[in-house]
């Protein structure tokens, strides 16, 4: 309580996602003393400071390599990464794809508010085409990433998406990501009424949440939709699962081989 008031604006969805992470940790019964939260820089990344674990608020874009170091140094720790859309897919894009490629046992939760909130509303790689930002006053001409497709293509072994409207689903998806032994990626859509919604006439926080409820379509239903029907819709739920050896387990075998002089 001595950390209140928090830094987030009225109507921000970050608190919803942060609570979902805490509930997912609880659901999986993780040891509070063996769980580390690592974040980058941005509005979302301030969540680490409000959570009662070993928490690390790193530099812009660098949460995943810091988290990789923690996990490799002590594989018994549960390591969860909190990152934003700019943090993860712009300045941290290289670390994101290589994190997925390596398949270190991390759970990365992307808080996607479609904008750089902390710096006042600049376009991010997840700002949808045509949407306005302070650095795209005429509407963004940059195509947005689909962060889940990117994670999947790069080798993540668990990929899911939820929204701040679908809180129970979000808790379940993050919990499943924690349970996956490998690089898990969960995109959570979270409203930023102040720096994104206002400029794009998306209404207040409640209206933005309602918008998310209408955009989100479970993957099974989404797959059955035509191209026209998919317009403005976003698939949610578990989007991808695959099997690949986890990095720390593989490196443990390297240590065994080296110990036996098999170089």
């Amino acid at each position, binding site marked *: 309580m001595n*950390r209140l008031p928090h830094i987030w604006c009225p109507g921000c969805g970050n608190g919803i996602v942060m609570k979902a992470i805490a509930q997912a940790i609880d659901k999986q019964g993780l040891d*509070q*003393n*063996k769980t*580390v939260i*690592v974040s980058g820089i941005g509005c979302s990344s301030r969540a*680490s*400071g409000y959570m*009662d*674990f*070993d*928490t*690390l*608020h*790193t*530099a812009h874009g*660098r949460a995943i*390599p*810091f*988290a*990789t*170091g*923690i*996990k*490799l*140094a*002590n594989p*018994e*720790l549960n390591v969860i990464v909190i990152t934003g859309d700019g943090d993860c897919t712009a300045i941290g894009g*290289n*670390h994101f794809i*290589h994190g997925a490629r390596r398949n270190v046992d991390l759970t990365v939760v992307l808080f996607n508010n479609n904008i750089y909130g902390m710096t006042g509303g600049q376009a991010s790689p997840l700002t949808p085409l045509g949407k306005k930002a302070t650095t795209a006053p005429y509407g963004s001409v940059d195509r947005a990433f689909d962060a889940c497709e990117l994670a999947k293509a790069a080798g993540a072994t668990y990929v899911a998406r939820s929204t701040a409207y679908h809180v129970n689903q979000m808790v379940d998806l993050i919990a499943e990501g924690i349970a996956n032994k490998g690089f898990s990626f969960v995109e959570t859509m979270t409203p930023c009424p102040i720096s994104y919604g206002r400029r794009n006439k998306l209404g207040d926080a409640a209206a933005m949440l309602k918008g998310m409820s209408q955009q989100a379509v479970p993957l099974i239903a989404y797959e059955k939709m035509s191209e026209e029907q998919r317009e403005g819709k976003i698939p949610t739920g578990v989007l991808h699962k695959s099997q690949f050896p986890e990095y720390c387990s593989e*490196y443990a075998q*390297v*240590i065994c*081989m*080296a*110990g036996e*002089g098999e*170089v």
Partner: protein
Amino acid sequence: MSEARLMQGNEACAEGALAAGVRFFGGYPITPSTEIAEHMAGALPALGGTFIQMEDEIAGIAVVLGAALAGKKVLTATSGPGFSLKQELIGYGCIAEIPAVIVNVQRTGPSTGQPTSPSQGDIMQARWGTHGDHPMIALSPWTVRESFDVAVKAVNYAERFRTPVIILLDEVVGHMRERVVLPRPEEIDVYPRRKPVVTEGEPYKPFKPMDDLVPSPADFGTGHRYHVTGLFHDETGFPSGNAKLTKDVTHRLHEKIMRAQDEITHYDEFFMEDAEIVVVAYGGTARTAYAGVEAARKKGVKVGMVRLMTIWPFADKIIKKIAAQAKAILVPEMNYGQLVLEVERVAAGQAKVVSLPKYDTEIFTPQEIVAAIEDLNAEVAK
């Protein structure tokens, strides 16, 4: 360990780090430092440690800072371009007080420059490369054997002061092979990871400074649960925008190093009893400088030499002393003239300070040093 071996400077540096307890290396390949990563890739798993090749230079330092927080002694190695890329996170290590050693095997720059040519061009970058006010420890060996010793010292200082420490190798020392006899493990002093201090009945304060002004935060995963950030923070680790706190923390970060300056600042003195001219040199250049000083002595010139192992914090006490004793100070460096600016600042006009810069990708010859000493000798005799 006590047998004579033919060894490269980069390899000796890696061996020194291992001897001091480094068990985690993360990095990215770059000439002329790559042998350090290659050596670590083979040696670390055999010791139960971890090597990881990262996707870029920034990830190379991020991963070691993470590993350090989780309890490992850590090393990364790079060269000029990579050193530039790592600078932001070197600053992160300063303010978050994370022990880590960064080796920079310098090459000719700026930018891609001359990737395989020797240089001492990163002296000022080591000190001021990251943004904002911060202290820095940087060491520069002049022999293969000393590359081992400097690596041990660097790891110990990083742990003792909870700060990043930089090893400035130059390509000459990094790639040179010499016969070395390394110390036995029992002959090496290793500074252990500082232990967390908990006061009964008080909330845990990981960043509360001890008597030496250095805090002793717990390793992650040991049950103390605290926050680490690159923002200015109070003793609990939680961010604060308080003006007085910002001032006090900045001051403490400097003071924890400067209070121990005599412990950190190492140098050698040669032929100094009656020296009227003093050559101040470091790294690979000091080897040629020594040969030049010896040759000039044989010609009857009253010349001495101070060889700096510690570049930062700057060895101001010895420079002040020689400025009072000598007529002139000659500073040969494989750059456009960097550390000479510090020598000038400290000499403060008491002795004439002359820069002997070399930036044509070639190393100094002893003849060049002798000629410069003789010119200077003639000038001060006037």
